[in-house]
């Protein structure tokens, strides 16, 4: 009986998040048309949601691993700013080509993650302290490197990382043929993965989700994807950012759910002592999570820098809080050991849609902050309430 309850609760959580996202989108669509403005869900807006929030999703992927392992990283905003500045320096001042700048910057990010992870993992200094220090140190380092100036602009190739679109190999152009093909393939893949998971659940004797619920949800997801794909195709096609995001999301979802190391990270957060006594090198895993976070912060830093077409000393302010909020809205546990990539992505999208929707509605930044804060609180209260019920 308890099994059935907990599995239903789990489904409720994920579906609830998805429903919340759909409801928020619907709400803004209504409110925007009520103001007599152009449709909320038009192609440029959809494209912009991904362009403007890509970095949050990327940071949240790394942040999920950190939080699942039982830690926190407050430094990612500063690290993103610093690595963005490094990329700008290498590109503009040193004149290196973008294919060299990107890996070099990612390595710098990894080293920063390693420097922080070392103290957290091997010296057991609380991650809150280490990364709070990192937050200050790398903010300062950014100012130092930039000398208080902006660096820019960038060559086209570097910019295209964040503002470019995939080429249309079909030559159709209007609508964007390749985008339509990829959309169809992704929808097919989503349905197939869902069916396979269902079959596996049935085989293991796991109480499966009610059939209606499954198909209802799959239909909503497929319809949403078809709509987004078509809108994007009728505008300028798939943004490069979305391609990078999709690859990373699939990769991290696979890593966290289907690999030995991914599973072990959950074990470390779930019960570190038990994990250790089961032969898991908990310190190394925590170290890895921080290195990974550093690399993703560097990627996010470059994307933001490329989008703004300049590295600025103030870049990345508050990114860490957006990423952390996305992870918790996405259902991760504060104490570690649980949380899913898909939840995090939905969490980040909820924040992104709200940012954009409220801006279009002309809601001031003051109210925006308050509303976002209350949404975060509500999401976590919903979680706790569900758990205690």
């Amino acid at each position: 009986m308890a099994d059935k309850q907990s599995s239903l609760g789990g489904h409720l959580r994920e579906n609830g998040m998805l429903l919340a996202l759909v409801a928020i989108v619907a709400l803004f669509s209504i409110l925007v048309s009520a103001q007599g403005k152009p449709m909320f869900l038009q192609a440029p807006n959809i494209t912009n949601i991904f362009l403007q929030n890509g970095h949050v999703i990327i940071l949240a992927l790394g942040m999920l691993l950190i939080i699942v392992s039982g830690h926190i990283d407050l430094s990612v905003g500063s690290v993103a700013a610093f690595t963005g500045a490094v990329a700008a320096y290498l590109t503009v001042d040193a004149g290196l080509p973008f294919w060299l700048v990107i890996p070099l910057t990612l390595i710098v990010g990894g080293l920063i993650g390693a420097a922080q992870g070392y103290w957290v993992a091997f010296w057991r200094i609380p991650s809150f302290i280490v990364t709070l220090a990192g937050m200050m140190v790398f903010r300062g380092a950014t100012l130092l490197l930039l000398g208080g100036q902006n660096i820019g602009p960038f060559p086209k190739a570097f910019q295209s990382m964040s503002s470019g679109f995939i080429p249309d190999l079909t030559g159709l152009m209007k609508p964007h043929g390749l985008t339509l093909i990829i959309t169809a393939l992704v929808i097919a893949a989503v349905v197939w993965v869902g069916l396979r998971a269902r079959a596996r659940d049935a085989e293991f004797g796991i109480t499966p989700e009610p059939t209606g619920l499954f198909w209802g949800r799959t239909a909503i997801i497929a319809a949403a994807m078809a709509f987004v794909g078509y809108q994007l195709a009728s505008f300028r096609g798939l943004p490069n950012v979305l391609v990078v995001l999709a690859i990373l999301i699939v990769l991290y979802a696979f890593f966290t759910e289907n690999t030995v190391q991914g599973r072990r990270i959950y074990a470390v957060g779930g019960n570190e002592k038990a994990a250790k006594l089961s032969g898991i090198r908990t310190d190394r895993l925590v170290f890895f999570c921080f290195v990974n976070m550093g690399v993703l912060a560097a990627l996010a830093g470059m994307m933001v820098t490329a989008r703004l077409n300049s590295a600025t000393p103030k870049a990345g302010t508050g990114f860490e809080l957006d990423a952390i909020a996305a992870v918790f809205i996405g259902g991760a546990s504060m104490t570690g050991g649980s949380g899913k990539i898909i939840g995090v992505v939905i969490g980040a999208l909820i924040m992104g849609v709200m940012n954009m929707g409220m801006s279009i509605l002309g809601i001031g930044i003051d109210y925006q902050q308050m509303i976002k804060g209350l949404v975060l609180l509500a999401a976590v209260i919903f979680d706790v309430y569900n758990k205690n019920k």
Partner: protein
Amino acid sequence: MTTLLEMREITKVFPGVKALDRVSLTVEVGEIHAICGENGAGKSTLMKVLSGVYPHGSYDGDITYDGEPLANRDIRDSEHKGIIIIHQELALIPLLSIAENLFMGNEVATNGVISWPMAFKKTEALLRQVGLNEPPGAVVGKLGVGKQQLIEIAKALSKNVRLLILDEPTAALQEADADRLLDLMLELKAQGVTQIIISHKLNEISRVADRITVIRDGTSVSTLSKDEISEDRIIRDMVGRDMAHRYPERTPNPGDVLFEVENWSCWHPEQAGRKMIKGVSLNVRKGEIVGIAGLMGTGRTELAMSIFGHSYGKGHEGTVRMNGKPVDVTTVGKAIEAGISYVTEDRKALGLILEEPILRNISLANLVGIAKRSVLDKRREAQVAEGYRKQLGIRTPGVQQKVVNLSGGNQQKVVLSKWLFTDPQLLILDEPTRGIDVGAKFEIYTIMKDLAEQGRGVLMISSEMPELLGMCDRIYVMNEGRIVGELGRDEADQEKIMALIVRDNNKGKVA
């Protein structure tokens, strides 16, 4: 002599267990009364009834204190009457000063404002009384356990104690500190403080106690006066009983030596210079169930964990051999690879990830076993878990169930499954039946028997002597970090084990 305390026919029932069954205890004014008994005999429960941890109404029987019936609602109530208990685990706050700790909850204050000069002055007086020469502002955590014990007593004195209860006060103390504490007890007695001491150490008891009450299986067996106290008598009273449980029939068939530890030592991880394991040598044969007996805190768990991947202590010395060949056990991973498993005594804190489902807990120590090139095969994971569910009889609606929802016995089976999936040659089982009801105990014993019949070695640590005697082919007796004796299946009985421990304690006393 007048009677200060009389507890008559105290019965305390927990769900499924009768912890106390009509226990009676009489304490005279000004005496030191010792209470003896095995682990789990009910000593601490009796003291918790007395001190109000279990309030009046949650037990049967009555208590007369100072000529009046005693009906404590809580600890404050009993402390108000001068009954103060000092628990085995000290309840001091390590980061605060002595003065702050002494008057915690009882602050020297007017209108909520603490007068520190007054508190310090009172602290100094109390510290003088217990013979502790430390400034009242000293931070408690920096003092040794012995001094902390004295602070606890000073705290009791500050509350105008009339009946002081000490629960195994010397268990964590070094020889000299223990001596000092016993002296203080005698001094307090001279000042008229009545005391109850719970202790295993018979040399201490015969030094300070005026009378002894022996408790066994939740009933009081006897009360002896000072001249009746003798080692043999006490041991007989402590353990003299029939086997309370049943054990599966098995014919021991030991093979070659599988596991050998030679001259194994290690040191306390924090307290420099405190040797916890002192040159232990032992072995287990294939198909053999070997026990380690000893009282709590004698280093059995520390021994097992230090062998299992150096999970306890530092400065490890000695050799571990499997099948005659030395093996590297410096990390848990290497120990598992060498064929060793350790089933912890604390399955909730150290053995399980409670919020995760059964199958994920079972695969945890051998994820590689359900993976191909690092990618998990979840179908295989479920099959493995399902296999163990059937084999060990884990009662659950499904292997997706979170382990937090299982009973103690079923949780233990999940832990056992986890280790069996690593295909160990040797299983070290630390208190394998702790917190498990009688029926499930039998199932765990049966699993142990099956393991031995498969040719695996089992090393079982237990504080329950009947279970060691019922299951083991050989029993090592451990005390103070050393093996102090080894008994074969036929020669072992509870009295011999107790005698080895008690005599070793006394030997330490003489030397």
